[in-house]
């Protein structure tokens, strides 16, 4: 999932200062799971804003709303049916960077400011702890590397074995971090697959990736989506 963290409160407060009607919108997917932008976090931020702005003498209305997914147009359209979004002066989006941008596209007359910093694609290690696992490089090599991503887990993103800085299984950049290639070696060794290391991985196709990237699913490549009469062929 996408992992994000709340921006410093002072920065959020500054970005809405001077506005009278403020809508804080959360997102019910990734950022809700990582305790950054779900319903509870929306309630906390809205309450903090009400207290802080009233203390600084501003008479404000701060309301709360949720979208199931801010990165999906239909859920933002849904929000517009339930709320008079245009009636607010500014929106604080508690979604990842993708959600904030789509919110800005759907409600293009409405200023939108982010309340989160989007950090990485990662996993939950335990309560309140997430770690990065994928850089969405577009050219997955996990099948060759025992399911450990050398692009993400190696500080130098090396594709064919460790650098000279690996020491007793730890990384020279951060001695508290495991060397990705030491882990790959020991896991392949345990599985009896050390021969995988004989294969030289070529430079990644994605290294020259042009942004913004785009994907159209194979089934939707015909303009208009589903093609009549072709089903089952």
């Amino acid at each position, binding site marked *: 999932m996408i992992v994000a963290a709340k921006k410093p409160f002072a920065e959020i407060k500054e970005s809405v200062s001077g506005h009278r009607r403020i809508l804080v919108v959360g997102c019910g997917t990734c950022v809700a799971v990582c305790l950054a932008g779900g319903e509870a976090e929306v309630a906390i931020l809205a309450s903090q804003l009400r207290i802080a702005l009233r*203390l600084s003498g501003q008479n404000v209305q701060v309301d709360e709303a949720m979208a199931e997914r801010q990165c999906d147009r239909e859920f933002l359209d849904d929000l517009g049916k339930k709320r008079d979004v245009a009636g607010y002066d500014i929106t604080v989006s508690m979604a990842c960077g993708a959600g904030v941008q789509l919110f800005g596209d759907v409600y293009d007359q409405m200023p939108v400011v982010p309340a989160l910093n989007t950090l990485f694609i990662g996993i939950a290690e335990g309560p309140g702890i997430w770690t990065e696992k994928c850089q969405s490089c577009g050219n997955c090599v996990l099948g060759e590397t025992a399911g450990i991503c050398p692009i993400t887990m190696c500080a130098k993103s090396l594709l064919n074995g460790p650098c000279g800085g690996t020491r007793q299984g730890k990384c020279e950049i951060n001695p508290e971090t495991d060397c990705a290639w030491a882990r790959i070696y020991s896991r392949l060794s345990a599985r009896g697959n050390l021969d995988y290391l004989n294969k030289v991985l070529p430079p990644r196709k994605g290294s020259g990736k042009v942004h913004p990237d785009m994907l159209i699913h194979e089934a939707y490549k015909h303009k208009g989506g589903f093609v009549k009469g072709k089903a089952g062929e």
Partner: protein
Amino acid sequence: MKEFCPKIEVMMCAYCAYSDADMAGSSQLQNSSTVRIVKYLCTGRIPVVHILRAFEAGADAVFVAGCEVDGCHFVEGNLRAAERVAWTKRLLAETGLDGDRLEMFYVASSDPHNFARAVDEMTDRLNRKNIEKSLA
């Protein structure tokens, strides 16, 4: 000048803390008139936003009263509440409200003075503080 009478919201568990407050009443201990009590089944179930909303509604201070350490009816609800209170103090400080306006107390049900002491401490703390920034 009108005398300041702080409003203190007490969020307490239905077991040790409430029993203690109840015993304080039946023991005819003089309690400060500053407190408003909200009873929860366990302090571990008090969400952060309830505390923040108490301040929004005009509370000058909030304290959470739970069972003693190792004495929680739900094993560790009081410890979770203490962690949540510590975090909420930081959230309050970000808004400009002094984190000292919020506190966690462990109150054993065996001594009715425990609750009375907690109320007195928060009342004294407020009286020592600059109260101009209250939202009331």
